[in-house]
Each structure stands twice: as structure tokens, then as C-alpha cells.
């Protein structure tokens, strides 16, 4: 096993420093910031509101539109402004991660827009985005069953790690790096899962168990950030 110590010295089940704050975009109905180490994402929610054009409306439920993007200077090599195939895919999996907890049937014929912007990127951007979006939806007073929490679990060579950094994503020795972004509802259901790399079936099950545990800790931080709103009232 080549990966015996993490590149930044963290414990294998330790996330980077987390920061969570609610109410960061005044114009929005709800908003939040979530940070994993050097990865910072902000999310703003607008809605439920009227959906135009009319033919896009769903008479049975609210349309949830997620839009993920990164600032051009959020990464070391400038990313040209505008959507990419990657950002479109992330937007979609984000929508799928959040939909199960929102009472969409309460808001038929309307739309809820969730906008996620990555201010600074060092891996796990979609996870930070989902964590921010879940807080922003609650902050916006949307009727929802519970929050969603997300983290990336990695298999670096044969070691399982929590919250990959970009350096770890680029690790090439041994079996290399396998990146697994996961999302769990508070009650423990998996609402986000993606993987790319090489992993054995039993290892993957371990990863899922580890992810669930890590997300429980992340949930407590999201909860605290929302409760902090009370101190300002």
C-alpha cells in the first residue's frame, strides 16, 4: 500500500476544514455558502415562483432547476466563462440529489431555481455545491422533508479517504485515485453517487458506509449554520 499518509497530513476519515454560512446573497429567497478546505461554493435559491413559458409548467409538481457553474478564476488554469458539458452534468445530478427531499407536489405549476457558483475550486466542488444548496433551500422556507449532505470519498491506491483534495485526485501511484462523490438524505438514503476509477465491489460497499458516516457529521454543521440565523433575529 503506497498511500500510508495523506498528502496534507489529515487522518483518513477527516474532512478538510468546513465552513457553512447562511444568507450570503441578499436578493435571493434563500442562500448559503459551504466550504471544504480550499473549495468554496455559494448557492442561491429563487422560488417557488411563476414559470414562463407556460408549456414548461408541470401541473403535478414544481419544476426544480439547478444551475451549477464555476468562476473562471476559481481554478489555476482559467476556465472560459460559460457552461460546459461537465457543468451541465453536475447541474443534473445536483437536481436529482435535491429532488427527493423537496415537497415538489406542494408547488405545482411553479419553478424553484437553485443557482450554484463555485468561487474557488480544489476538488469536491459538486459536493460543496449540494451542501450549500440544501441549506439555501431550507433558508428559503421551501417545504422539505429533510436536508441533504454530500462528500467525496476516495480510494487512493488501496486506502479509503474522506473528502479528496485535488492533489489526491491526481495521485497516480499504485492503483491510482478513484473519486466517489456521494450524497445522503438525513435519514440515510443515497441521493447522489458517481464514481470513476477502479474499485472492488467490497471496497465500494466500505466507501458507501464511510460516506454515510461522514455525511452525518456534515449534516450537524449544516444544521448549526441554519440555527445560527436565530442569533440574528
Amino acid at each position, binding site marked *: 500500500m503506497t498511500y500510508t499518509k495523506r498528502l496534507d497530513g489529515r487522518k483518513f476519515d477527516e474532512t478538510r476544514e468546513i465552513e457553512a454560512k447562511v444568507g450570503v446573497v441578499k436578493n435571493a429567497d434563500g442562500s448559503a455558502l459551504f466550504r471544504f478546505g480550499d473549495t468554496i461554493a455559494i448557492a442561491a435559491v429563487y422560488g417557488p415562483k411563476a414559470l414562463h413559458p407556460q408549456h414548461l409548467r408541470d401541473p403535478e409538481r414544481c419544476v426544480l432547476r439547478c444551475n451549477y457553474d464555476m*468562476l473562471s*478564476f*476559481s481554478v489555476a488554469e482559467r476556465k472560459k*466563462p*460559460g457552461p460546459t458539458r461537465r457543468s451541465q452534468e453536475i447541474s443534473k445530478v445536483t437536481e436529482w440529489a435535491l429532488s427527493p427531499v423537496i415537497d415538489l407536489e406542494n408547488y405545482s405549476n411553479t419553478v424553484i*431555481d437553485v443557482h450554484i*457558483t463555485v468561487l474557488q475550486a480544489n476538488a469536491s466542488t459538486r459536493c460543496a455545491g449540494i451542501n450549500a444548496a440544501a441549506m439555501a433551500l431550507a433558508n428559503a422556507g421551501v417545504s422539505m422533508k429533510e436536508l441533504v449532505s454530500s462528500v467525496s470519498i476516495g480510494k487512493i491506491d488501496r486506502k479509503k479517504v474522506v473528502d479528496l483534495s485535488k492533489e489526491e485526485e491526481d495521485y497516480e501511484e499504485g492503483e491510482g485515485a478513484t473519486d466517489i462523490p456521494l450524497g445522503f438524505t438525513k435519514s440515510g438514503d443515497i441521493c447522489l453517487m458517481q464514481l470513476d476509477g477502479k474499485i472492488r465491489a467490497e471496497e465500494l460497499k466500505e466507501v458507501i458506509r464511510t460516506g454515510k458516516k461522514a455525511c452525518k457529521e456534515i449534516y450537524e454543521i449544516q444544521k448549526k449554520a441554519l440555527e445560527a440565523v436565530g442569533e440574528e433575529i
Partner: protein
Amino acid sequence: MKISNLTKDRIREFLAEGKRFDGRKPLDFRKIEIETGVSKFAEGSVRVKIGDTEVVAGVKLDVTEPYPDSEDEGTLITTVELLPLSSPKYEPGPPRIEAIELARIVDRGIRESGLIDFSKLCIEKGEKVYGVFVDIYSINDAGNLIDASCLAAVSALQIARMPKYDAKKEKVKHGEFTSETLPLTKAAPITVTFYKIGNKILVDPTEEEDEASDGRVSIALSKKTGKKEDILINAVQKGKTGTFKEEELFKIIDLAVEKAEELEEAIKIK
């Protein structure tokens, strides 16, 4: 909600007494805050707040080909994105005309002031130069994005550092910076946009005041040597459908010179 007729009228009634809805005088700016280093992978990045309006700007450099008519000069590309998260009025999609116009106004101010010494951004004449990318994003639109964007762009350039260059590979080492600042001159442009409501002129409008106004004029000024006597107007843009009388425009030109001085004093980089 779009602005109502009665609010439009009330804004004018208040202005007739030199007052605004938030208690400001017509030529008062809201509180300006500048925060540096908001995104560590940028050569330079800045967050500017004017009242509740918030924008972030970042500077990135890369190796690029020079333009054929300026073979030994670096290049500048300015982009503005009006993010949907900053206001319910922006939808995701390609840049709207508002974003395009804004980017071009910011670009002209920087270019014509001579803030960047492009001749010092040459790596190999005719082959390789540094391209400077200034990208500005709205985070919360509460009015006056033009002045906030110009301020953010210039501040980001002022604190930016040159990236490390790999001479062998002839490429920039992305994410690795030197302690050297960009080759800038003293001519930092300041933009002030004047809005006209009825026959009153004001600056730094809230969104409502912007909606109630018929016309605006943005003026970018800079001082080549940093001395007041050398103040020059580098860019002007008249926007919206309303027109200006000659006396109004002359008054605005004088006010621009005054306001640029005031703003320079007021700007504190944190």
C-alpha cells in the same frame, strides 16, 4: 415586482427636495468595501461591495499570440457575467446585452487610461505575449453594477501578481505566482455613472432608482501621473433611451472630475 407608477413619482418628489428613499443625497455613494484575495487560484481577485451590491473580479494570465498590429504587446480580455444568483431578473444562458455592454465599458476604461503597460507583457515578439483576462461576476445586484465592476476590475489588477513562467515548456505555471505585480502605471481609471431622473442627476442608484431613471452616462477618468492637474477622461458611455441637455452633460462632466477625486479618497483596500 416592476417599479410602480406611484413609486416613480415619489422618487421624483423626494429628489425635488434633494432626498432619496434611503436618506442619501443625490450625489452620495453608499458604503464602499473592497476585500482582496477572495479566490486563491487567481493571479488577483477582489470582492467589491457598494451598499448591498456585490461583485467579484479575478485576474488570470496566460500565454497567447499577440495581435498582428501590436506584435510586442500583451493583450487584455474583459468579461462580465451577470449571474442568475445575483438577481431574479437574470436567467442562465449566454451573456445578455447588459453584460456585454458592461464588459466593454470596463474594458475601455482600463485600455484608454493606459493602466496596463502592455509593452512589458511581451515574452517573444510576434510569437508569445501575456494575455490578461479580467473576469467580473455579479454576486448581488442592488443597483450600480457599472461602477462596482470597474472598481473591482481595477483593484484586482492592482493586487495581482505575475504567474511563474516555465521558459523551457514556454507555458505559464498555472496556480504558481511570483511576488511581482503586473506592469501597471499610476493611471488607475475610476468610473462614475450619473443617472438622470426627471431633470435631477444622481449617482449610485438602487435598483428602483435605476428603473425610474431615463438615462445614464458613465465616465471613466484617470490621472496619468497621479496628479490632479493631469486628470483625463478616458471613456464615456451614454445609456438608456432618455436624452441629456447640453447644460446637463456639461454639469455631469464637472461632477465626474469632482466625484473621481472623492472616490479615490474613499477607497480603502482591506
